[in-house]
């Protein structure tokens, strides 16, 4: 769209251990069975294409896509998605 992006794209995640794993490429027995796709993320982080940030559950917009929510949190997240009435 004729706009360049100079800073890495931020991706928010509410799982601290997933973030830790993505930053630290230490091989661990329990993380042995992780998909190849996941290593792509590590690569992108190393290339500074994306940054993974922690975000508390209340501000996790993607929550709306994974589980049925209470009315209040549903409306809060819906607003954060940019949805509004005409």
């Amino acid at each position: 769209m004729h706009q360049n992006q100079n800073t890495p794209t931020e991706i928010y995640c509410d799982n601290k251990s997933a973030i830790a794993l993505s930053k630290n490429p230490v091989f661990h027995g329990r993380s042995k069975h992780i998909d190849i796709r996941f290593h792509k993320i590590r690569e992108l982080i190393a290339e500074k294409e994306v940054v993974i940030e922690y975000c508390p559950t209340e501000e996790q917009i993607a929550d709306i896509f994974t589980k049925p929510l209470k009315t209040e949190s549903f409306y809060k997240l819906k607003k954060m998605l940019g949805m509004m009435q005409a």
Partner: protein
Amino acid sequence: MIKCFEMTDLGLMSYFLGIEVVQQKDGIFISQKKYASDILKKFKMEHSKPISTPVEEKLKLTRESDGKRVDPTHYKSLIGSLRYLTAQRSDIVCGVGLLSRYMEEPRVSHLQGAKRILRYIKGTLTDGIFYGNNSDVKLVGYTDSDWAGDTETRKSTSGYAFHLGTGAISWSSKK
């Protein structure tokens, strides 16, 4: 181009594949009001009572429920219509995904779930996404997983949303 090819200039885009586009000075607003009301009419839910959320919190649906079976063709067409609505209505993606797992042998409980989404749509017909045109446009992503939320298959549902500026431009909810 008009000289070379036979074409007409319709001006700014306002309606495309069921999506209404309003181009204002401060940004673009997209909605699917017409398509949503068409669905309500098609499934005879236009006089239903609106409800605040698309899915009941802690809703548990199962494959082998004892309820009566419903017409799978009707159910599939309903889910399909709702699925198209998720092209822009990101708030019902999760609910539609949940219900589309029971396309094979839909029961009364599943159809009720689908009708609840229609009631929610009824209350929020005009909702849409607004993309403001301020200069601070930044791409931000959010991801989440529900940690094996499906008790039958022990599979997780993962979802993501990418925002560009004020509105979400890409999202998914996938089991």
